[in-house]
C-alpha cells in the first residue's frame, strides 16, 4: 500500500475549545495539543467520515489551505496518533513493576472515633472493616515497625511521606508525637527526608497540639462538611448532637496558628449536603481554609444519605460555578482554593495515563492498629483486603491480585472511554462498596467524570492560552 492510498480516520481523542482555540486531549497518552486552523479543519472533515490522503488534501485545499501545509499537517496529526490510517496501536497500559517502591504510608493510629458520622466508611452501614478482636489503638512497637517497613520498602526514594489517619487521629496523639520523632530520626540517619500530614475531625485540637503540628510542618486536612446546618446533619456525636460548635473555634485557632503548611478542608457530599458553592464560601472565606476539596459520599445507592441523580446534577452545576471562578482567579495569577480543579489540572498538566486509578497498593499502603497492611486507609482492618503485615512485609500474591483487578486493562467497560487516562475506572474502595469487587469500574459516575474532565480541560486550555505561567506551579509532581 502506498502512502497516497492510505485511508485516514480519526484517532482516539477528546477535542475541546477554549479561548477560541481547538485542543485535542489524546487518548490514551494524555497529551494535550493546540491545533492550528488546518489541523482543526482536518478534524472537522474527518468527523464526516474517513478519507484517502488525496481526498483529504483536496478537501483541505478547496477550503483555501496550501497543499504543502495540509500535507504536513496530516503527517503531524498522524505522528501523534490523532489520525490513524488503519494501523493497530498496542495501547495496553504498562503494568507497574512488581517491586514498586513505597512513597506514602497511611498510619491508622486508632480505629476509634469520638464522632459517629452516619456515612463513615469505617463504621457506617457499608463498612468493610472487620476490627473484632484487633487492637483499637496502635502501640509504639507496631508504629516503629511501620516506619522501618516504609523506609525499607521505599529504597531509592530520597523523600517519603507518612499520613496519620484514624478513626479520629488525635485520639492517639501521644503516639503521633513519638512516631514523628522516631521517623524523622531514622530518615535523617539514612540521609533521607520524611514529611507528615494528618486528617482529623478537629474536635480534639488544643493550642499545644496546634503548636506541635506547626513546629513539625505537619500538613492538616480537616474533615468538615460546611456551615452549621450542614456539618450538624451527619457529622454528629453518638448522642446525635452536632459537632459544628465544637469544631469551629478550633479550626479558626488552627488556621491562625499553624503557619507552616496550607490547611485543607475535605467535604463529604451527601443527599442533604449538596450546596457546594455555599459550603465552599463558608469554609474558604468565613473560616479561612486555604484549600477546600469535595468528594461524594461512598455508599451503596439505597442509603438515605446517598445522592440521587438529580442531586448529582446539582452538585455538578455548582462545581461548574466554582470552576469558572477558579479560571478567573487563575487568569489573575491567584490560587482559588477549589482543590477539585487544581488536583485535576495537576494531572492534566503532567499528562498522566494511569494503569490504576490511584497509588493504592503501589506507592501507598495503609497500616491498621494491628500492623496489618491494606491497599489504602479505606481498607484498613479488613481481613478480606489485607495484603500483608508490617512485620512480614507485603504479601506479593495478595497485592498482585488486588493490582490485577484494578488495572485498566481488565476494565473492558472503560476501553472506549476518553476519560480513562485520568479516571482508570475510579476508586477501588467505592467499586467494592458498590459492586462487591475492587476491580469493577465505577459505572455509576461515568457521565459525571467525563463532564468534569471536559470542564477541567477547558479551564486548562484557557489558562494555557491566556496565562501559561500559572501552570508552572503544577510542573513539579506531587510527592
Amino acid at each position: 500500500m502506498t502512502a497516497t492510498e492510505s485511508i485516514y480516520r480519526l484517532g482516539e481523542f477528546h477535542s475541546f475549545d477554549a479561548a477560541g482555540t481547538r485542543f485535542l486531549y489524546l487518548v490514551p497518552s494524555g497529551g494535550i495539543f493546540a491545533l492550528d486552523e488546518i489541523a482543526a479543519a482536518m478534524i472537522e472533515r474527518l468527523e464526516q467520515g474517513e478519507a484517502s490522503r488525496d481526498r483529504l488534501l483536496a478537501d483541505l485545499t478547496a477550503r483555501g489551505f496550501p497543499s504543502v501545509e495540509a500535507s504536513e499537517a496530516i503527517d503531524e496529526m498522524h505522528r501523534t496518533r490523532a489520525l490513524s490510517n488503519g494501523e493497530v496501536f498496542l495501547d495496553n497500559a504498562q503494568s507497574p513493576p512488581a517491586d514498586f517502591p513505597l512513597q506514602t504510608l497511611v498510619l491508622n493510629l486508632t480505629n476509634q472515633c469520638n464522632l459517629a458520622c452516619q456515612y463513615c466508611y469505617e463504621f457506617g452501614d457499608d463498612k468493610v472493616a472487620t476490627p473484632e478482636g484487633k487492637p483499637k489503638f496502635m502501640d509504639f512497637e507496631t508504629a516503629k515497625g511501620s516506619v522501618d517497613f516504609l523506609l525499607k520498602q521505599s529504597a531509592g526514594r530520597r523523600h517519603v511521606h507518612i499520613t496519620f489517619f484514624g478513626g479520629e487521629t488525635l485520639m492517639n496523639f501521644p503516639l503521633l508525637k513519638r512516631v514523628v520523632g522516631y521517623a524523622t530520626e531514622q530518615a535523617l540517619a539514612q540521609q533521607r527526608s520524611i514529611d507528615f500530614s494528618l486528617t482529623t475531625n478537629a474536635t480534639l485540637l488544643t493550642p499545644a497540639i496546634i503548636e506541635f503540628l506547626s513546629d513539625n510542618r505537619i500538613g492538616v486536612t480537616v474533615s468538615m462538611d460546611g456551615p452549621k446546618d450542614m456539618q450538624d446533619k451527619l457529622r454528629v456525636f453518638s448522642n446525635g448532637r452536632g459537632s459544628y460548635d465544637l469544631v469551629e473555634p478550633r479550626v479558626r485557632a488552627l488556621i491562625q496558628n499553624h503557619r507552616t503548611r496550607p490547611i485543607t478542608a475535605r467535604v463529604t457530599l451527601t443527599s442533604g449536603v449538596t450546596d457546594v458553592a455555599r459550603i465552599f464560601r463558608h469554609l474558604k472565606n468565613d473560616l479561612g481554609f486555604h484549600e477546600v476539596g469535595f468528594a461524594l459520599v461512598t455508599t451503596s445507592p439505597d442509603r438515605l444519605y446517598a445522592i440521587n441523580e438529580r442531586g448529582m446534577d446539582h452538585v455538578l452545576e455548582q462545581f461548574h460555578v466554582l470552576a469558572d471562578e477558579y479560571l478567573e482567579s487563575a487568569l489573575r495569577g491567584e490560587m482559588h482554593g477549589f482543590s477539585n480543579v487544581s488536583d485535576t489540572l495537576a494531572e492534566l498538566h503532567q499528562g498522566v495515563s494511569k494503569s490504576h486509578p490511584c497509588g493504592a497498593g503501589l506507592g501507598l499502603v495503609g497500616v491498621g492498629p494491628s500492623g496489618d497492611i491494606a491497599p489504602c486507609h479505606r481498607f484498613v482492618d479488613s481481613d478480606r483486603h489485607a495484603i500483608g503485615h508490617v512485620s512480614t512485609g507485603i504479601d506479593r500474591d495478595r497485592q498482585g491480585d488486588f493490582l490485577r483487578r484494578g488495572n485498566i486493562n481488565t476494565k473492558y467497560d472503560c476501553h472506549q472511554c476518553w476519560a480513562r487516562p485520568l479516571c482508570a475506572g475510579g476508586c477501588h474502595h467505592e467499586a467494592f462498596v458498590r459492586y462487591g469487587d475492587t476491580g469493577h469500574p465505577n459505572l455509576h459516575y461515568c457521565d459525571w467524570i467525563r463532564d468534569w474532565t471536559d470542564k477541567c480541560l477547558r479551564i486548562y486550555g484557557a489558562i494555557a492560552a491566556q496565562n501559561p505561567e500559572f501552570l508552572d506551579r503544577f510542573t513539579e509532581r506531587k510527592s
Partner: protein
Amino acid sequence: MKHLRAINKKAHRIDQISESPEKDVVALQGAPPPPKMHVPMGCTFIFTPGWEVDSAGGSAGLCQPVERDIYDCYVDCYWPAQVPDHLNNAPDWAAKCASATKDWRNLDLIFP
C-alpha cells in the same frame, strides 16, 4: 511540529519522540506482527448432519461411525475447541493415525 502545538508535559514528550528519526527503536513498540493466515472454514461454511443423533434421536443408527466425527472436527474445525485443527495449527496431528478405529491411540495431545 508546526500545526500542533504541544501544551502539557506529555505532549512535549510525544513531540520529541515524533520528531526523532523514524524507525529508531522499534523492538516491542511497533504494531503486532500480521496474523497468520487463517482459513475460514468450519461449521459456519458447511453443514454435515448426521453425527450427533440418528433419525430416531439416538446414536445407534448414525450414518457414519462416531470415530469419523473426530476427523470432521479435525479437518474442517467442526468443534475447534475439542480437537486440534488441521487447517491452521496442527496439519500433522493425524499423520500416525491411518484408521481412527484402529490407530486412535496414536492421536496425541497438542502442545502449542
